[in-house]
């Protein structure tokens, strides 16, 4: 329309144009119309589909409703069926109850009839079986059944009466026959009636009677064995172990009772009764062990020897507190009081450790066996724990335990005596073989200590081992260290003699069987030997505690936490004796320094003062042509060190060189400060210090640079061209090349003044930051 409204119809040309447009539009419309008509068909087809779908949905809804109904119905059915099943179950269980009661009733009748005949026929196992069956019945229920079932009342009560009286009769018979069997010592019958007690419900009575019977047999056996112990031992050539063997046998007898009877008890009595058996058995064991120990104490004179050892100890402790300050070591016991040789006591110590270890093994065996039986029984947790606690108390509070603790005490006393006496003996009999660095006592003493600690392991007591380790540490710290000290405190005799000569003199005298070397020579060698002894001991003590640590871990594989800490702490105490030994070495070195090193070294170094240090070129040439100071010094020191080298351990020799180097440098420094130098003098000094440093470095395996630093720095200062050059050396930028200055600023200035050609004003002017 818009097309036409504002269009001019005045010209035909325009009208034609419009007509053309209208025609074009009409064609368009027709085309659209046709398109729409074509779609109608498709839409109608869709509509038809939808209608069909609706019809089908309706049918599904109906089906679902029907299904719902059916399910509800089924559920109802199931509920009713299950109720019936439950009722059926109940009925069945009642039926089985009734059946049981019927069985009981029948059995009751049978048992009632059977028991009397069986008793009469002495078929006690059958009779007891009937009674056992009867005891398992619920009597209350049976009586009620009897009331329900008319007529049978009388027969049931009759059977019950018969069985009740049968039970009483059976018990009487069993007790009587058991005791008869015991009297006749008829083991088969004893065991027969022992097995009947539990059938009658008299478990405890059976266990008690049987255990007591076994105890009497055990007592007789143990008594006889103890009486014959000495003879048996003599026959086996084991007299020294007679009581250890007797103890072993006694404890094995007890253990065997449990071992043999455990299956019978468990089969006829059930689990949990072994503890009751052990309780009775342990009482007997305690009595027998007491007899054995009494014999042992009497025969081995334990009390007398203990008294003797204690007397010796207290005498020693009184005498040594008075003398140890003077540096004497105490001597082997002997003389005045009755002697008790360590060897003599050695055998008894072995015997006691074996006895103690047997007790440990016995306790372990009993504990394991009985605890297993307790854990098997059907009681609740608390009862089981109570029983385990009772087992523990039974063993811990037994006389056997107490006796074992007393044995351990005796062992420790004797072991300590053995160890201390043997160590004193080894010290007293110390010999030095020529050519050896150390003397015999070091090897001997450490051998004894190791033997004692090792032996303590065989006692199987961690507490005992700890005590022996403590005693070993005390013994080293005291007697051994005192022996070292007393020799070192005598000092190294001074006087001019070569050690090599002393050695060969002693060797000669040994070869010729007479001593003609001077006392001084002997004393010198002796001093060095003890210095070496001390040094070697520090090594031995490390080996000792390390090997013992390993062996202890092997001997006690299942230590508790506390036991591990105990051992560790005792070992570390032993380890710390090393510090005391090290102090001995240091002390000896100081002695050596004051009596051997300084008196010889000082004059050699002081030779420096006799030389001229303001040299002309000609004088320098002449000096260098002859033996220079440093050549002389090195020859002397080298000779000196070489005399010591073959007589000292490596560590001691190194320590000696260290002392020599320190003493040498400080002494030389002092000498230098007393001299006056010119340029050439300083140059010579610098060369000589270098030569000395090179020599010392070649003499040892460790660095001597540190000890030479001050001297090197002094020589550097005295070798300066001009005073101002000092700044090049002092300059912090160079500090990385040069080790830091060991000299203070004042010292540097003082040293600079030793150069005659340096002017005081220049020295004052230098600035050192």
């Amino acid at each position: 329309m818009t097309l036409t409204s504002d269009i001019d119809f005045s010209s035909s040309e325009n009208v034609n144009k419009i007509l053309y447009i209208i025609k074009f539009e009409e064609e368009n419309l027709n085309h659209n119309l046709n398109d729409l008509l074509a779609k109608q068909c498709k839409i109608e087809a869709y509509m038809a589909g939808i209608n069909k779908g609706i019809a089908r949905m309706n049918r599904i809804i109906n089906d679902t409703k029907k299904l719902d109904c059916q399910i509800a119905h089924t559920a109802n059915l199931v509920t009713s069926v299950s109720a019936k099943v439950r009722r059926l179950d109940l009925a069945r269980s009642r039926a089985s109850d009734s059946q049981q009661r019927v069985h009981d009733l029948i059995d009751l009748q049978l048992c009632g009839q059977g028991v009397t005949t069986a008793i009469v026929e002495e078929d006690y196992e059958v009779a007891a079986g009937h009674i056992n069956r009867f005891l398992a019945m619920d009597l209350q229920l049976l009586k009620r059944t009897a009331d329900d079932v008319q007529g049978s009342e009388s027969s049931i009560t009759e059977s019950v009466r018969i069985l009740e009286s049968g039970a009483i009769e059976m018990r009487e018979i069993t007790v009587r026959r058991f005791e008869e069997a015991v009297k006749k010592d008829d083991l088969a019958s004893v065991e027969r009636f022992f097995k009947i007690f539990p059938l009658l419900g008299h478990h405890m009575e059976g266990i008690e009677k049987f255990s007591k019977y076994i105890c009497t047999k055990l007592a007789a056996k143990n008594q006889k064995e103890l009486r014959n112990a000495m003879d048996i031992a003599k026959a086996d050539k084991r007299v020294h172990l007679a009581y250890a063997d007797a103890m072993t046998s006694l404890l094995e007898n007890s253990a065997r009772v449990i071992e043999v009877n455990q299956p019978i008890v468990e089969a006829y009595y059930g689990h949990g009764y072994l503890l009751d058996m052990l309780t009775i058995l342990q009482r007997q064991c305690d009595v027998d062990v007491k007899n054995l120990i009494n014999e042992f104490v009497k025969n081995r004179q334990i009390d007398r020897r203990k008294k003797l050892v204690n007397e010796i100890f207290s005498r020693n402790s009184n005498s040594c507190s008075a003398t140890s300050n003077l540096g004497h070591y105490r001597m082997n016991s002997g003389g005045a009081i009755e002697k008790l040789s360590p060897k003599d006591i050695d055998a008894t110590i072995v015997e006691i450790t074996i006895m103690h270890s047997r007790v440990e093994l016995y306790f372990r065996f009993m504990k394991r066996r009985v605890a297993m039986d307790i854990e098997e029984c059907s009681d609740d947790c608390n009862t089981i724990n109570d029983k385990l606690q009772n087992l523990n108390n039974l063993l811990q509070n037994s006389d056997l335990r107490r006796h074992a603790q007393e044995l351990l005490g005796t062992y420790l006393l004797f072991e300590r005596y053995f160890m201390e006496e043997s160590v004193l003996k080894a010290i007293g009999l110390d010999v030095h073989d020529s050519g050896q660095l150390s003397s015999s006592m070091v090897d001997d003493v450490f051998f004894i200590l190791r033997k004692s600690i090792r032996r303590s392991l065989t006692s199987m007591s961690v507490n005992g081992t700890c005590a022996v380790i403590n005693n070993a540490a005390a013994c080293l710290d005291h007697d051994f260290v005192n022996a070292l000290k007393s020799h070192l405190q005598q000092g190294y005799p001074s006087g001019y003699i070569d050690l090599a000569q002393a050695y060969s003199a002693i060797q000669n005298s040994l070869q010729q069987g007479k001593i003609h070397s001077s006392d001084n020579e002997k004393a010198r060698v002796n001093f060095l030997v003890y210095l070496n002894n001390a040094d070697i001991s520090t090594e031995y003590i490390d080996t000792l505690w390390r090997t013992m640590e390993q062996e202890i871990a092997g001997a006690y594989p299942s230590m508790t936490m506390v036991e591990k800490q105990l051992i560790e702490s005792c070992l570390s105490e032993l380890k710390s004796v090393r510090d005391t030994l090290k102090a001995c070495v240091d002390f000896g070195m100081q002695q050596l320094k004051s009596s051997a090193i300084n008196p010889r070294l000082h004059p050699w170094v002081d030779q420096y003062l006799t030389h001229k240090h303001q040299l002309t070129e000609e004088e320098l040439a002449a000096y260098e042509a002859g033996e220079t100071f440093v050549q002389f010094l090195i020859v002397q020191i080298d000779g000196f060190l070489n005399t010591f080298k073959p007589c000292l351990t490596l560590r001691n020799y190194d320590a000696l060189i260290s002392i020599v180097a320190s003493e040498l440098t400080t002494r030389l420094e002092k000498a230098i400060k007393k001299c006056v130098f010119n340029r050439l003098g300083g140059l010579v000094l610098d060369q000589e210090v270098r030569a000395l440093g090179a020599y010392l470095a070649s003499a040892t395996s460790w660095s001597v640079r540190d000890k030479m630093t001050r001297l090197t720095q002094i020589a550097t200062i005295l070798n300066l061209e001009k005073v101002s050059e000092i700044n090049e050396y002092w300059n912090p930028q160079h500090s990385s090349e040069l080790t830091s200055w060991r000299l203070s600023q004042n010292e540097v200035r003082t040293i600079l003044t030793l150069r005659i050609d340096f002017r005081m004003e220049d020295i004052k002017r230098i600035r050192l930051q």
Partner: protein
Amino acid sequence: MEEYKFLFKIVLVGNAGVGKTCLVRRFTQGLFPPGQGATIGVDFMIKTVEVEGDKIKLQIWDTAGQERFRSITQSYYRSAHALILVYDISCQPTFDCLPDWLREIHEYANTKVLKILVGNKTDRDDREIPTQIGEEFAKQHDMYFLETSAKEAENVERLFYEIAAELIDQARSKDNSSSMNKNLSDSVGLSPQGSKPPQVSCCSGLSNQSSSQTGNT
């Protein structure tokens, strides 16, 4: 491992039943143990305390009072830094035995060991030993004195802390006086044992006047 500045060994001795184990448990675990048995041999406990900011490790050895353990317990005297001698204030015989215990201590312990006399069980109302008697005995024998109750936790902490403080003082003064030249005659003395003992090489010990490196740890 934990760090500590000093390690001290404290050993408790005294008659059976005077309450040694109870004192140790009270101090280390803060409890009064009901009905534990007599001690067998020795028992061992560790407690680390702090005194003036320093960690101190105390190794406490609780020995058995019963006679038959004497050879075990004696062996622990030597390395003790402090010995606590305990009696029961309600039991005269435990007090009467003190001289015997002192004899043992004299025989086996280091002469410089710190000795403390403790009268335990002050909570009991059947006292037999007046405080003054105990005090006098302690003074006569050059011991410190304290009355405690393991049951009521009275003076138990104080006992161990005062021992620690005293031992620290001893160790410090000893350290200062003899750090340079270890005199042989008293080298057995009470020396502090840190977790890292100062390392001394075999030679430097002799020349430490000049070397500045081997300082204290």
